[in-house]
């Protein structure tokens, strides 16, 4: 046709332009061709089927004459029958083809392969459009392919492969899934799958009581892996970030209190001295990560209670790895929860620092220099009640020298700060003793109770359990533990007769004069009261006590603004305001207590309604 037009170019240019009723040669040719083609539909039909067959075989991987395809389709376009005659059957055919393929592949191959396949398919279709299809076909074509290959299989893909991909941490495959799913608007289902995955896996970690020890570190690992997946596979999608957060909050609060306690314990382990091998930066990093978990916890007060208890131990026994790390942790908590939360914790640090000063000035004071028995040095931590956890007072009859010392210090302290009351917490004291064994001089680092027991042996060779008990006045159980640590532990300063692990009533003890040890300074480990169950429950109970006031305050706050409120609404509002898990029955109890104390009353006419009594 080009040829014809070339020959008759002059005609086309001069005559046709001037004669309005005559079409250009090109148009005329097209029209004629169309007319003939429409006269013989079987030709058209044949061409189309031919085309479709060619495309199909290309899809199946055979090489075809793309130029031919290109020309034919250009012809269709030129004739204006592209959309009608070709595009429609083509799309139908595509749909059928991919429907079948999708079904087949879903059954045959596993999810990552399937996704890879889908990706290549979509790419191919795209190329096809560029190479020989009309540009306007691209959208419907890709949509058809996506629909058949992806949309219909979303849930199957998620069911079959999502867990596996997450467990295997397969970032690339997950990313592929994410991009493909985002094409068909299926991110919502992906998000849900993610959420339920986190919940399921997290539940496994949190609910497994036997693995309590590793819970925090497992959770940290889990969170870290989720974070990388989120960054690399989910292109930092905000919705997904929230999903992860929500799911974590949910799972960490599945078990009341225990996770909070374990996080506190975990931090204790990290902050305690003897945790060598981690550099400051690493420690900082861990702290930050733990803080993320902490953020999810609803029972922050439980955390505080346990953290405080452990912190007290670290500070008093000088076991803290680094004061800087401690302080940075506190400041982190402060930014997280406000100064109210860390008030007491900071107070503890202040006490320790103040105590240092007091000890200094005590040593300089005249009282100390003139009156003190020689040979003993004393350092005192003065702790503010209220900041520190409460310790049960333990009685002990101190040796005379120590008593004198205590009294002098007391005198000194009270002369400096009159009106205060000092109470000695004997159970927290620890000492360094100089001991002369026949086989060499040693220094023993022991607890105050151990000291008291050992000093008895200054004057005696052999003492019975009862003797020791009478002269020290230490409480029975505590004394047994103390003796056990001295005579049955690793370092045996005393010998027990008869030998055995447990201390019985009629045992007696002898100074061990064949004691040897490679080191000069020896630490005799006190047998730690292994975080007794009672101690644990008492901490938890105290937390609940504190919560009562919070509940009361919340009820009064709400009622003060509302004046009149129905029971159900009050309960709902309370659940929103209170940050920790609580049972409705507990709330009722507090409401009743407030009724009793005449903050509230039940409405005379409708008992479901409370009135605020100003």
């Amino acid at each position, binding site marked *: 046709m080009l040829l014809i037009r070339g020959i008759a170019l002059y005609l086309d240019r001069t005559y046709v332009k001037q004669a309005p009723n005559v079409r250009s040669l090109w148009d005329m040719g097209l029209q004629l061709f169309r007319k003939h083609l429409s006269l013989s539909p079987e030709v058209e039909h044949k061409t189309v089927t031919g085309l479709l067959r060619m495309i199909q075989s290309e899809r199946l991987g055979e090489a075809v004459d793309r130029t031919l395809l290109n020309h034919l389709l250009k012809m269709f376009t030129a004739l204006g029958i592209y959309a009608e005659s070709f595009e429609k059957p083509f799309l139908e055919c595509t749909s059928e083809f991919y429907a079948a393929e999708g079904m087949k592949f879903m059954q045959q191959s596993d999810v990552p392969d399937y996704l890879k396949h889908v990706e290549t398919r979509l790419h191919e279709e795209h190329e096809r459009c560029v190479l020989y299809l009309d540009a306007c076909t691209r959208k419907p074509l890709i949509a058809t392919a996506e629909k058949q290959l992806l949309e219909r299989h979303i849930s199957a893909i998620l069911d079959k492969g999502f867990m596996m991909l997450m467990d295997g941490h397969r970032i690339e495959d997950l990313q592929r899934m994410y991009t493909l799913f985002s094409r068909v608007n299926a991110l919502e289902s992906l998000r849900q799958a993610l959420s339920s995955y986190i919940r399921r896996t997290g539940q496994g970690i949190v609910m497994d009581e036997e693995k309590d020890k590793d819970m925090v570190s497992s959770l940290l690992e889990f969170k870290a892996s989720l974070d990388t997946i989120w960054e690399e596979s989910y292109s930092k999608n905000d919705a997904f970030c929230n999903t992860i957060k929500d799911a974590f909050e949910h799972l960490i609060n599945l078990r009341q209190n225990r996770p909070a306690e374990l996080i506190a314990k975990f931090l204790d382990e990290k902050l305690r001295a003897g945790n060598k091998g981690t550099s400051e930066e690493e420690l900082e990093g861990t702290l930050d990560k733990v803080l993320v978990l902490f953020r999810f916890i609803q029972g922050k007060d439980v955390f505080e209670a346990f953290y405080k208890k452990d912190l007290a131990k670290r500070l008093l026994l000088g076991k803290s790895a680094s004061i800087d790390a401690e302080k940075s942790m506190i400041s982190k908590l402060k930014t997280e929860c406000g100064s109210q939360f860390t008030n007491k914790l900071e107070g503890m640090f202040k006490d320790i620092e103040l105590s240092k000063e007091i000890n200094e000035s005590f040593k300089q004071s005249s009282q100390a220099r003139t009156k003190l028995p020689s040979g003993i040095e004393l350092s005192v931590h003065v702790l503010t009640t209220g900041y520190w956890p409460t310790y049960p007072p333990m009685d002990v009859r101190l040796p005379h020298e120590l008593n004198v010392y205590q009294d002098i210090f007391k005198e000194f302290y009270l002369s400096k700060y009159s009106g205060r009351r000092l109470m000695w917490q004997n159970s927290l004291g620890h000492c360094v003793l100089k001991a002369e064994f026949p086989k060499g001089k040693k220094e023993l680092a022991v607890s105050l109770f151990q000291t008291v027991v050992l000093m008895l042996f200054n004057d005696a060779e052999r003492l019975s359990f009862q003797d020791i008990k009478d002269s020290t006045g230490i409480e029975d159980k505590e004394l047994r533990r103390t003796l056990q640590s001295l005579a049955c532990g690793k370092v045996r300063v005393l010998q027990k007769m008869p030998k055995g692990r447990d201390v019985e009533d009629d045992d007696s003890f002898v100074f061990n004069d064949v004691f040897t040890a490679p080191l000069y300074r020896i630490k005799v480990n006190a047998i730690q009261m292994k975080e007794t169950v009672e101690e644990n429950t008492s901490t938890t109970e105290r937390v609940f006590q504190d919560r009562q006031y919070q509940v009361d305050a919340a009820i009064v706050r709400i009622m003060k603004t509302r004046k009149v409120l*129905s*029971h159900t609404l009050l*309960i709902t509002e309370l659940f929103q305001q209170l940050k920790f898990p609580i049972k409705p*029955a507990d709330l*009722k109890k507090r409401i*009743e207590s407030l*009724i*009793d104390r005449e903050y509230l009353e*039940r409405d005379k006419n409708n008992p479901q309604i409370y009135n605020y009594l100003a």
Partner: protein
Amino acid sequence: MPRTSKRKAAPPSSASVKSSDSLSVRPGKAGAVKAVTKEVDRIDQLFDSYANKDLGLIDPEGVETLCSDMGVQHTDVRILMLAWKLKAKKQGYFSKDEWRTGLKALKVDNLEKLKKALPTLETEVMTPPNFEDFYAYAFKYCLTEEMQKCVDVETICELLNLVLGSQFCAQVDSITEYLKFQSDYRVLTMDQWVNFYRFCHEISFPDLHNYDSDQAWPLILDSFVEWLREKRK
């Protein structure tokens, strides 16, 4: 509200009985004022015949004498109702003012009339708004100490029996059984007391189908219902 004081033989003075026999209120224009003062006199006489002269009050002993003269037990609910009507503040005592206003309201001025007034009083108490007031009064009447706000469980059980026993026998039996069984509460508050009545009044018993612990019932009733349901299983 059991009274433990021993009953002392204190026969009513014959004078008061006589006077009450011989006198009756004669309505009439001229005699009206006189009649009123006379009525007050008679009420006072009746009061004096039971009062402890030193205290100027009818004390527990006087109350017991009064009861026996009327032929009712001092633990009878009607005595509690009388106390309610008299607005008696202190358990076991009637002051002169309480006595005067109360008896005037009852329109009685002698023992016989008082005795006859008791059934009427009972019907008065049993009408709804009065009963609620009476019910709450019964609790307050048991607060014998200054600043006392709670009543111990045993007294509550007896009191429940006394005031609700006739109307809600089954409920009262269950509740008292539960109160004796549980160990969480040793004393009960006014709020809990009031809600017992609400419970008896509103909750279908014994199936409890309309009880919902999400409503504002006090915790003790929640646990009571739970206990009851558990027991049924």
